[in-house]
């Protein structure tokens, strides 16, 4: 399946569902929904949560790799077959992942990110939330959005792909605001506007963005990280004056220094949230 064509074929569907919900809602709730849609339209961007050393490599100009590119590189280094490395890397999730990949056209060319309207995203994948910009299509690539994480939302334990749900949820960039509104239609009225960013993108839930061209550091508008992580990294700088650092701390201090240096040179803000 060409995921981008399928997303385009849904044009009007998410907007139509949203408008129907809006028409049926009380005035108060309709106002909240309208404010939410405005917020996504104004602040929406696409982000990838990266671990520090991955973010540092990316901002320093090394290519960001998807899982297939990483396994190909490891295969070149080790002399082993890339599919074997992929299977070993994913362990018990290999079957679900390969079934989903086999279902998509040119899956080895795809990159995965998330819709983000503020905050630090899904930090369990990495503290450094790299914001790629408001509109990925501006950079000439194709983008599709999914209501939920592709593996957890659309592939069952027996590695079967829920095609009808997948087709119903796929969404093109122009309608992502309505996809987000419909996903959170019950949460929006009872969630303070200040909490909408973590409602849209966090470890618990996110709207997946899938695109077909490698992201470049020139697209990065900002890097956000949790204040607790930011403070902890500066604590390592302080600790260096008072005790020996362990190798893990040295690696973090080294990578953080290089990230700040590269981000400064590229004019990318690194911001604690």
């Amino acid at each position: 399946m060409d995921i981008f064509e399928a997303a385009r074929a849904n044009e009007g569907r998410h907007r139509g569902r949203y408008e129907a919900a809006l028409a049926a809602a009380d005035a108060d709730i309709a106002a909240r929904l309208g404010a939410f849609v405005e917020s996504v339209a104004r602040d929406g961007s696409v982000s990838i949560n990266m671990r520090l050393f991955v973010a540092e490599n990316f901002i320093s100009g090394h290519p960001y790799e998807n899982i297939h590119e990483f396994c190909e590189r490891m295969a070149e280094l080790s002399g082993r077959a890339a599919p074997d490395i992929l299977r070993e890397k994913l362990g018990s999730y290999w079957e679900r992942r390969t079934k989903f990949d086999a279902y998509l056209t040119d899956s080895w060319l795809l990159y995965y990110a998330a819709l983000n309207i503020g905050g630090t995203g899904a930090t369990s994948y990495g503290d450094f939330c790299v914001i790629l910009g408001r509109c990925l299509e501006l950079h000439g690539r194709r983008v599709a959005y999914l209501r939920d994480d592709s593996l957890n939302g659309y592939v069952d334990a027996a590695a079967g792909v829920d095609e009808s749900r997948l087709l119903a949820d796929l969404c093109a960039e122009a309608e992502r605001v309505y996809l987000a509104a419909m996903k959170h239609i019950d949460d929006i009225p009872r969630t303070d506007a200040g909490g909408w960013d973590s409602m849209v993108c966090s470890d618990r839930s996110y709207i997946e963005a899938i695109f077909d061209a490698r992201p470049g550091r020139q697209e990065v508008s900002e890097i956000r990280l949790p204040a607790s992580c930011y403070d902890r990294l500066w604590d390592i700088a302080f600790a260096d004056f008072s005790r020996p650092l362990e190798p893990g701390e040295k690696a973090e201090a080294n990578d953080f220094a290089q990230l700040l240096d590269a981000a400064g040179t590229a004019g990318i803000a690194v911001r604690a949230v």
Partner: protein
Amino acid sequence: MWRILAYCREDGWAVIGHADKVSLLRPPFARGQLTPLDPAALPRLLAQPGMLCPAREQQDHTSLPVLIDFLNQEILRSRADSGHALPESGYGPRLLAMAPAPVLARMLDRIESELLGQGRLEQARTALVAVLGAPACRESQEILGRTAALLQRVDEAVKTREKIRADAADIPKVYPAAARRYGVESLRDFNAASRTRNPFGLPRAA
């Protein structure tokens, strides 16, 4: 038995299996914190760049400290393998050179309370010199002034310590048993450090 299910050589993040639980372990390892992993998050975490399954002989470890030692050594090896071995030292000054003003202000608080306050004068001086070298320090009169004032306090404390050491010539007479046991120089150092922190100095023998 502690098993590494997947890990990244470059940064030490590791998915650990122990006692039928799956957790995430990440630096700083000194905290030894294992974060329980949501099974739903595992596929995407394993798909992250750098995450690999360890070789069979590297999977199982007899204790958490042994496993952490393995991860630390792997970090060092991977950096050396890539031609970017981690420097032995200099991380503090390197980072502070890029620190914004609010971070420098927090550093000064800690230097004052944790280093100067505990009589760790040489460490306090090194840290303050690093703060002084940061562009953000030179751009802020408040931080520059505070850094200079703290450096002056360090200098005064060093002078006080040296004077106390010089004045402590009679320590072996006052504390002959301690002098025999610990050595005269050790007692002078201890007295100087105590006096720097505490204006009343060593308690006198009754």
